[in-house]
């Protein structure tokens, strides 16, 4: 707590912000106030409307109604633009760094704002460096203006980004800094450095809106908390006296049962995939089994290590340690091809890693099966066409024909075809990363049915998702991954999306 907040004037006032996407009301008239000089955490789970609200503040989306007021200057929320948000004094530091690691700290501070130039439009480096020096001192960053930014620690790099956003504010601290998951990619010691810096800035009067998933950080640093759920403003409360469980309860809307479930008896068949002590990158030690005929979910927040885990099993990332067993035999795939030959299939998180957009639907469906058409010195395109027609039917892909360009299909149909590309190989183990991300409801239902059919035929499926409702509905068992480890498991009666959210949050950040 900074303690500098009590009785601070209102710096930012949101009034009845409304936003709908089609039939979905993402924000149902959200109003709250942020006081000057406080750190105000903005919390909410999946679908809470938190992301939408930040995008409206940044001018990326226009709201359907409501207003934004910064220190008495009022803006209709229907008419926000990035320039208007900037003029109001809203400053954003996003989750993805927008800095230039190879360039110097001074250059990073000047880019986007402009360099001091002399009569010949030449950069006056001495002035630039002196100003950088002053900014670094003001923000308490231990760095030399001439150092390349990449040589600094991760927390310092974020602080330079914050300093760049705030260096030109007119008063000492009139601007409002919106930090969107600034710690998502920081290791734990760096998080502490950054949080200490934020506390100092707030103590000096800086107003900060802090968006995060990590509740420990909220409790450590925030003065007040606003919670959104399903587009409604649930509460804006002081952080003092709040407990972790109370926060989770606000976010999820149910009371917390903090007892972890025991992993029960296995009613499925033999173990198809066994992972023991797998480590590497963000994965810090995973033990996991998936049985034949079973769909196991992998619930985790951004940065939990879920995607890296799948890529390691598929041979696309090299683990530092650990054992993989497939049907009891140890495998160590060093390339995707070796994993494929062992009977593993993998659908990556983003379609841009799977789709050959300018090739045909037929070529996309057979991308992992080309050698099967290579007989007698040529590719048998007629057989390929016949198979394509059969697969289009089997996987309910809506397309004019095998020769259509893949990129012209909708996201849902592309995803169905990509799933078909792998399921036609009858894999032993199917790894899915966000299988329905950006897919409409109709296609979603068909994808779920397809996965279930594959499992009924004896495949083992491991599906990673941040959509906990999806996991609760689809999976037989869900493992919760956090900080690169499996921290809990839920099954049977425990498999509610609320319960999964509780588990993911309760263990989030505990590294």
């Amino acid at each position, binding site marked *: 707590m900074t303690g500098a907040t009590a009785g601070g004037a209102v710096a930012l006032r949101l009034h009845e912000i409304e936003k709908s*996407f*089609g039939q*979905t009301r*993402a924000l149902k008239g959200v109003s709250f106030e942020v006081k000057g000089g406080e750190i105000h955490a903005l919390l909410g*789970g*999946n*679908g809470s*409307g*938190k*992301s*939408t609200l*930040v*995008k409206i503040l940044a001018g990326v989306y226009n709201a359907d109604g409501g207003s934004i007021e910064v220190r008495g200057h009022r803006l209709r929320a229907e008419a926000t633009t990035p320039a208007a948000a900037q003029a109001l004094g809203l400053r954003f530091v996003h*989750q993805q760094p927008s800095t230039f690691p190879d360039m110097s700290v001074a250059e990073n501070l000047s880019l986007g704002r402009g360099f001091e130039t002399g009569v010949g439009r030449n950069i006056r480096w001495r002035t630039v460096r002196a100003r950088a020096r002053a900014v670094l001192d003001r923000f308490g960053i231990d760095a030399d203006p001439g150092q390349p930014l990449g040589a600094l620690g991760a927390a310092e790099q974020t602080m330079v980004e914050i300093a760049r956003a705030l260096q030109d504010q007119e008063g000492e601290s009139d601007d409002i800094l919106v930090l*969107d*998951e600034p710690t998502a990619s920081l290791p734990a010691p760096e998080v502490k450095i950054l949080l200490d810096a934020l506390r100092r800035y707030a103590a000096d009067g800086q107003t900060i809106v802090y*968006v995060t998933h990590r509740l420990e950080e909220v409790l450590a640093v925030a003065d007040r908390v606003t919670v959104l759920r399903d*587009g409604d403003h649930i509460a804006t409360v002081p952080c003092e006296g709040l407990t972790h469980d109370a926060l989770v309860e606000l976010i999820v809307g149910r009371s917390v049962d903090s007892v972890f479930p025991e992993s029960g008896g296995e009613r499925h068949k033999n173990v198809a995939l066994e992972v023991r002590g797998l480590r590497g990158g963000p994965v810090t030690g995973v033990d996991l089994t998936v049985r034949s005929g079973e769909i196991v979910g992998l619930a985790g*927040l*951004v940065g939990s290590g879920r995607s890296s885990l799948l890529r390691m099993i*598929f041979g*696309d990332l090299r683990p530092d340690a650990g054992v993989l067993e497939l049907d009891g035999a140890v495998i160590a795939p060093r390339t*995707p*091809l070796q994993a*494929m030959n062992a009977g593993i299939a*993998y659908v*990556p998180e983003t379609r*841009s*890693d*799977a*789709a*050959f*957009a*300018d*090739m045909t639907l037929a*070529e996309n469906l057979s*991308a*992992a099966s*080309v050698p099967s058409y*290579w007989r007698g010195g*040529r*590719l048998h395109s007629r057989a390929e066409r016949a198979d394509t027609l059969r697969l289009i039917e089997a996987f309910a892909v*809506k*397309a*004019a*024909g095998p020769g*259509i*360009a*893949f*990129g*012209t*299909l*909708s*996201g*849902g*149909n592309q995803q169905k075809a990509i799933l078909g590309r792998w399921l036609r190989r009858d894999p032993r183990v199917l790894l899915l990363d966000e299988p329905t*991300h*950006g*897919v409409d409801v109709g296609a979603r239902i068909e994808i779920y049915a397809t996965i279930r059919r594959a499992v009924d035929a004896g495949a083992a499926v491991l599906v990673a998702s*941040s959509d906990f409702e999806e996991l609760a509905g689809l999976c037989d068992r869900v493992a919760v991954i956090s900080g690169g480890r499996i921290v809990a498991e839920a099954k049977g009666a425990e498999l509610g999306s609320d319960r999964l959210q509780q588990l993911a949050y309760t263990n989030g950040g505990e590294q």
Partner: protein
Amino acid sequence: MSTADPVPGAVADAGQTPLPDVGAASRRSSSSGGVIRHAEAYALPALLVAVAILFSVLPSTSDTFPSMPNVQTIVGNQSVVGIIALAALIPLVCNQFDLSVGATLGLSSILSASVLSSGASIPVAIVVGIAVGGAVGVVNGLLITRAGVNAVIATLGTAIVIHGIVTWKTGGESIVDIPASVTNFGSANTLGVPRTFVALLLVALAVYYLLEHTPFGRYLYSLGSNPSAARLVGLNTNRLVFQSFVASGMLSGAAGVLQLARSGSASPQVGENFTLPALAAAFLSAAAIRPGRFNVGGVIIAIFFVAVLNSGLNLAGAAAYVSDFVNGIALIAGVALSAAFGRGRTGQ
């Protein structure tokens, strides 16, 4: 944040999805799109025919242009540039540029000439030419896949080094004492068809087979379309890139031997003039036959489109520099058109 909330996610999907009602949209593009697809595919061939007819009836060229000798000259002279355009096509399919095709041709031409002039047999000279090209391809491939040098830089560098080697080896002089049996092949016709043209057709068929009817070709197109997706369907992307440069080098080497036969001498400057027209044709290939996709038929059409235009303008009395305009504009048009067709196909 961005991955967390389903509502903005759903909006992002609407943004990525060009056509909300897929079924209807695909049906539309199948009926009217078929006509457009055909128009795209055969616009350049039709233009080639139109230009040929134009010069055949234009008073200033109607005597000379449609004559048998002129047709034989056009057809015979394009074989060498045609083969190195096909060479450049192979790496281009997997999105890599080979700027060394012309220099490789020059090196092969000089070295096969020097073994011929020192008394080696023709088959030995051919093997030497192709092997030299393959060696250049191996160097390019290693630089790109092992050392991680960008293909444009790597092949530009090898092209400059090769030019130095050629000047050093020849002292700037052409090698002229070539056996008559070799030069006879280069200028002879079979049933009125220049033999070099027959060689071009054979190479074109071989490259067509490689790209369209083997897994290797399919993999190259996949790699060109989306490298990370290619990796995740189990392709060894580095090996494919390496092999494409070796194939390109060997074809360029073969073109060098053919150039020697055609011109009857090996000039140290010969290679430089071929690289840009060959790359222009390789690019322009995506604007014909299979729109949005670099392809063999498109290369052949593009080569002869530029050649017919140049020949006609030349016979009509246009200054020599006009052919530079034609080549330059063809290159730009090729890139622009293939980009436009590529966008159309993926709906972006």
